[in-house]
């Protein structure tokens, strides 16, 4: 058992150690035999690169709006899906469905839906009179970011729904009865009972979604490749682009390590929020 765990840990830890090592060398992948140690040059390069900061800002926008939208829509949907109505299970199934749709599929679908020339979205909006000329969804910086965020929200809101729904099902109905006896209306009951009960799980979900959205690579890469221009770059794309297209493995690794640091901070926040592992200590 233990050797198995150790080998798995090695499999997992080794690449990270290797990434950290790479971040301290200059490494042109075309010349793998030549890797001089350059101290913090790669980090300095990253921190002085305006594109890094642009990517960072965009990553914040992309992460912030996506996560917020996911949380709000997710809680709303979970509340609706929690109602004891006939056929609610069918809705549950359909609304959770996007979570399992492969990223490649949804990115392709998005490119097809939002195709500026013959995409159905433009057609529907044009015929509904909402827009008067075709919108170049994926080639206007703001619209491209909006499309990417929309994709992310579409695909991952079900995750929030799943978790919130699971939590809603554990709230004792006595609480609501007590509130009703106390004369609280529906809105007050939501504010004073549901929301506080959801607070903890919501915090966890938001931290998770934040970290994960922040790290997302494939969604953006497959949808816009960071474009138009560099307007949908995030740090993952930046790291990938530095390493692969710019042949600067070291710089790519350094930006990866910076991301790793940010995620460590996020994880600490998560551990704080949940008191993760605390019960373990008591046992």
């Amino acid at each position, binding site marked *: 058992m233990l050797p198995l765990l150790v080998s798995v840990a090695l499999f997992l830890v080794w690449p990270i150690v290797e990434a950290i090592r790479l971040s301290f060398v200059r490494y042109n992948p075309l010349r793998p035999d030549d890797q001089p140690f350059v101290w913090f040059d790669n980090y300095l390069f990253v921190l002085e690169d305006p594109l890094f900061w642009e990517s960072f800002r965009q990553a914040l926008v992309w992460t912030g709006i996506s996560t917020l939208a996911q949380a709000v829509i997710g809680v709303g949907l979970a509340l609706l899906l929690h109602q004891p109505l006939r056929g609610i299970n069918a809705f549950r199934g359909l609304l959770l469905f996007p979570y399992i749709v492969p990223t490649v599929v949804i990115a392709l679908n998005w490119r097809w839906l939002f195709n500026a020339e013959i995409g159905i979205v433009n057609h529907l909006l044009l015929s509904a009179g909402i827009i008067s000329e075709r919108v170049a969804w994926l080639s206007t910086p703001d619209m491209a970011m909006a499309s990417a965020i929309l994709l992310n929200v579409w695909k991952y809101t079900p995750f929030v729904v799943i978790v919130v729904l699971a939590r809603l099902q554990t709230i004792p109905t006595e609480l609501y009865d007590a509130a009703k006896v106390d004369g609280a209306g529906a809105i007050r009951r939501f504010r004073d009972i549901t929301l506080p009960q959801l607070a903890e799980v919501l915090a966890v979900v938001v931290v998770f979604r934040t970290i994960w959205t922040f790290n997302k690579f494939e969604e953006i890469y497959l949808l816009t490749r960071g474009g138009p221009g560099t307007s949908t770059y995030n740090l993952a794309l930046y790291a990938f682009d530095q390493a*692969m297209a710019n042949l600067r493995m070291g710089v790519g690794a350094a930006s990866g390590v910076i991301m790793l640091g940010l995620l460590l901070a996020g994880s600490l926040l998560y551990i704080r929020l949940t008191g993760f592992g605390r019960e373990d200590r008591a046992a």
Partner: protein
Amino acid sequence: MAVKVSRRAALGSALAAASTLAAPAIAQTRERVARVWGEPGPYVGVFTNALNEWAQRNAPGLRFEAEQIAWDQVYVKLTTDLAARRPPALISVESPIAYQLAAEGLLEPVEDVNRNIRAAERLVDGFKIDDFGTWKGTQYAVPLHHQGCLFIAQSDIVQEAGLSDPTNWTWQDLLNAARTIQQKRPGMAGFTMALGRNLCGDYHIGQFIWQAGGLTWDPSRNFETVFNSPATIEAYEFIKELYAYMPRSAVEFSFLQVVDQHVTGRTGMSFYWGRTMGRAADEAKPIYEKMEYYLNPAHPRTGARWSWTDINGWVLPRRDNPFIREVKEALTQVMNSTEWMARYSASLFPNVGPVFKDQAAAPALQQHPMYQAKKRSVDVIFTGFVPHACNSGFELRKGISPLAGIAHGRNVWSQVAQRILLNNESPRAAVEWGHRQFEDIRRENRRLLG
């Protein structure tokens, strides 16, 4: 090595567990596989078939296998596989990258192959062997095909707009035509080119820069960065003017979207290589029938009609390549076969231009229905443009530059355009930004220049 061994030991148990579960996944034959990299498209497959024909007779147990590398994936694959010291046996890659690899010293000299196939004598007029990838006097590439980027117009639309014969157009005529078409045909773009941050954007933009007389690095002056010339700025200013008559989404266009636009009748004119005609023939007969290829519109002052041309040759990775001898023999055999070379060129007509005279004259090409139907256009694609062929690694035919491949990896040319079109930077400022990028590339890779 020590690290590697301990890693192996540590992974042993995980692998043991994995392999029992994944037995079918690793059950592969122990034949020797020589990997061949090429663009997507049938021609690499055809050439691989030819190589395998040789292998069956002369090298039992050896199999060539084509790996299609999409244009935008070239760098990912190149980076990972070369870094991992497992290059393919044979590569057909866009010429600037081939030049870069040659200068990096990663390639096997191929004078012997070129001699054995009498490449110098057979080459079509206007090309020299050195154009395909000779660095410091050593030949690293075996001529394979050429693809020049040209100007495509729909003759019916041009006539309807009352425009002159595009053969003699200048930039002003192009701009005027684009405007006119856009006005006369609502919902249709006047002109389409790629302006996305991708290779295609780089190529299309490059043509304008050279036509105006600009270039990126000057080989005659030790590759000094000369991007920020008035000519370059003029080219970008012109692109900005022209963009008014392009689809809005041209700023994200790459190869595919440009062809899509033209073949589905949503643009009157575009830049592209031979493939647009091939696709129109497959999918849109009415458009195909009215489609004509021309040399690029001339710059009004310089009169230049430069065409971004992939002067494509086979290159062989030198290190970690156990197949060099066999690949050379196979290449010699296949490329001496006019029949195979014609078949290669005909497999995606007229996308891959013939590099050898005997190949160009072969019945498979001469009697191809598309050649019969579109003789004038195909002649432009196959031979007419050759005097105007250059590319970003062979700017203005002044000399091979190993830096262009790197710059394409970063799409600096199209990034400049994007700064102008998307961020509303002034062309001068954007060009200065580009100049700094190019200068960085030159500084970082000075060792390549020797």
